[in-house]
């Protein structure tokens, strides 16, 4: 029987930091990364020399971006591992660090995601040597636009109902100084924007930009070594990862994969979907949020749109969904995204989310899907 994270020694998030997500600029990636790294170390009050290992997540930058960046914190000789897992790169790096600390190979591990949209290349699926029909014509936004069309048909909700996801997430992002999109938009503005594919307009799709996110992960021994206690620590009670199988409806793989992965994480943590206070979801396209909330059991099938309209997923509602603004509002610099979710959940569970604070947040999962298709889910809980 494989061990789960929760059955090993406890692992905590003890420090978080971000560089704002923003459109591509002249800022070197090293500067983006160091800004998030220093914020996370300061927040943790852990000196860099105490860090045993580092995981660096990126998907668009070239190979081995870690040392040219991290050497400026002091070249301590710590092991550095780079992780690429498409949109879930940051989530995968975070999982590696958690596992390393949980099994006591390290006491303090550092996770950083940094990326710039400089090298957007072709998808691996196009290089397999297996030609598909019109695969040059079906890019991710069309994949999700087709899912939105089927979702509206299946649940009877309107495209306006689906677009409301962007309304909420842009509103949340307008309260987040690290978000790429910082303007709340009315439903009319969202629906009236430039058409992309199907019913999607630009504001219903995530902007891919640049940025950085960092977290410090530690054991109690690590904290003790740094002279610290558990006062501001948030425990990671579950980590689950899965990849796509063959499903009855293969086009709905994102949803089926999410269901399997998040359900596994919630089971590990011993919490129910109904008991979640706050959740950061992969919402690269509006319809995803509704599908995933139903898939993981936060609500019943076909109910997400109605609950969203009633405010159930607002900050202060039944369960705050993507209070950071999500991928649609906060942005999606790829490498940092999954780590940025951990930053937001940690702030929420510490009660340090300021104007975005969801009252009495105690249990918060983070969920990411990556092209390919891989899925990660972590559960964070306040002590």
């Amino acid at each position, binding site marked *: 029987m494989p061990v789960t994270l929760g059955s090993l020694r406890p692992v905590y998030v003890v420090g978080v930091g971000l560089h704002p997500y923003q459109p591509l600029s002249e800022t070197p990636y090293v500067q983006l990364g160091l800004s998030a790294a220093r914020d996370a170390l300061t927040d943790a009050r852990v000196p860099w020399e105490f860090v045993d290992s580092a995981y660096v997540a990126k998907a668009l930058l070239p190979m081995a971006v870690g040392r040219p960046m991290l050497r400026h914190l002091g070249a301590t000789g710590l092991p550095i591992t780079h992780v690429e897992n498409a949109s879930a790169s940051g989530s995968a790096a975070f999982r590696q660090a958690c596992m390393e600390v949980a099994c006591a190979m390290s006491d303090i591990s550092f996770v950083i995601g940094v990326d710039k949209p400089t090298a957007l290349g072709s998808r691996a699926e196009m290089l*397999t040597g*297996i*030609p*598909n*029909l*019109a695969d*040059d*014509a*079906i*890019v991710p936004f*069309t994949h999700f*636009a*087709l*899912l*939105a*069309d*089927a979702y509206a*048909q299946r649940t009877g909700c309107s495209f306006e109902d689906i677009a409301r996801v962007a309304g909420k997430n842009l509103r949340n992002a307008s309260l987040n100084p690290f978000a790429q999109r910082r303007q709340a938009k009315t439903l009319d503005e969202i629906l009236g924007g*430039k*058409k*992309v*594919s*199907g*019913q999607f307009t630009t504001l219903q799709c995530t902007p891919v930009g640049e940025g950085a996110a960092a977290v410090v992960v530690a054991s109690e021994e690590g904290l003790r070594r740094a002279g610290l206690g558990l006062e501001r620590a948030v425990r990671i009670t579950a980590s689950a990862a899965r990849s796509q199988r*063959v499903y009855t*409806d*293969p*086009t709905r793989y994102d949803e089926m994969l999410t269901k399997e992965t998040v359900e596994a994480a919630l089971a590990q943590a011993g919490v129910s979907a109904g008991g979640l206070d706050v959740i950061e979801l992969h919402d690269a396209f509006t319809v995803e949020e509704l599908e995933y909330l139903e898939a993981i059991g936060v609500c019943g099938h076909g109910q997400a749109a109605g609950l969203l309209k009633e405010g159930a997923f607002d900050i202060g509602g039944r369960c705050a969904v993507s209070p950071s603004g999500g991928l649609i509002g906060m942005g999606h610099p790829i490498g940092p995204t999954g780590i940025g979710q951990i930053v937001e959940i940690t702030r929420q569970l510490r009660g340090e989310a300021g104007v975005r604070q969801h009252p009495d947040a105690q249990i918060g999962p983070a969920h990411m899907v990556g092209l390919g298709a891989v899925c990660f889910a972590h559960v964070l809980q306040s002590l």
Partner: protein
Amino acid sequence: MRGMRCDACGYVFFPPQNLGCEQCGTTGSALRPCQLVGSGTLMARVTVHLHAKPERPAPFVIGTVRLDDGPVVRMLLDAPPDTLPPIGSPMVAVLSPVASEEGSRVHDLRFSLAQPAPLQE
């Protein structure tokens, strides 16, 4: 339309490949080409308004079709961008002539409504 069938587990798939069955991992002669009937049911459809590749000028229509043989495929639909066929419509594969870069006529596999909808008065 040519698909493939795995004799080990019965999985029928498209597009054809002999790299290994996605359901059970079997390779070799157990993966056999098979003919798929070029008919199915429309599950979803969208008009693509923005597309970066100049060789595919937008708008064009993409559909998800569940073939009567089982596999679900996505491809271009022969449908006007402003009047999409309803979800649930019966569809058939057609060879549609498209102009190639050299100006010669080539054919592209697409899906089209099985029976044209009756004209509304």
